[in-house]
């Protein structure tokens, strides 16, 4: 670890800007978790998926789960074109492709490591879907929410 980075980060010292809002659950102040992330080179990764075929869907989950496994914050966003893949039972249909990892395990991996799986709200009307049609763990959000969440993402992909 680079000590100059530690000094700059102020870890172990008093922080003047750690107001009550910067304290998160588990009692770890937000500024410390952010600094720890930076120290270990963690990134925020944003991936959009624009199609519901296996060719579109595997890559977001392969890269997303690999990133989440390495401590990165992962946000997947399925546009109306990609949304049907997240309807209950659809991942199961394309689960097994020769030579590729198990799609369901990747999905569960992303979820269990804190990754977020968003579906664009526009998909509801565009594809005739309801929120409860989507599999567990999927959240329906608007574009503004997604963009606000990924404004500091340094790695982005689109499939």
């Amino acid at each position: 670890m680079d000590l100059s980075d530690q000094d700059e980060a102020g870890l172990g010292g008093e922080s003047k800007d750690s107001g009550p809002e910067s304290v998160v659950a588990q009692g770890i102040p937000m500024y410390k978790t952010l600094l720890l992330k930076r120290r270990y080179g963690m990134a925020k990764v944003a991936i959009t998926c624009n199609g519901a075929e296996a060719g579109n869907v595997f890559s977001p989950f392969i890269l997303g789960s690999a990133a989440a496994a390495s401590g990165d914050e992962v946000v997947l966003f399925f546009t109306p074109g990609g949304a049907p893949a997240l309807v209950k039972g659809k991942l199961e249909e394309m689960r097994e492709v020769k030579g590729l990892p198990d799609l369901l395990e990747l999905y569960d991996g992303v979820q269990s490591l804190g990754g977020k799986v968003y579906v664009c709200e526009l998909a509801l009307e565009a594809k005739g879907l309801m929120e409860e049609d989507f599999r567990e763990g999927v959240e329906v959000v608007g574009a503004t929410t997604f963009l606000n969440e990924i404004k500091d993402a340094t790695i982005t992909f689109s499939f």
Partner: protein
Amino acid sequence: MATHTLDTLGLKCPQPILKVAVKAKELQPGDMLEILADCSSFPKDIEAWCSKMGKTLLFCADEGGGKYKAQIQF
């Protein structure tokens, strides 16, 4: 201190690393994790994971027949 083993034989990238990451959540500092894998990208991937996560990769040995055995100190 405890030694845990993780069998990822037959799993494709990035599943072995994913299993390691999920397993890591239940390990304590000082614990050892031994991993069996036969994914060809595993040696480089586990080295990258350990380096990024600040864990010590004690070794990653080629066991022959496309199999690898790695040990990580948590």
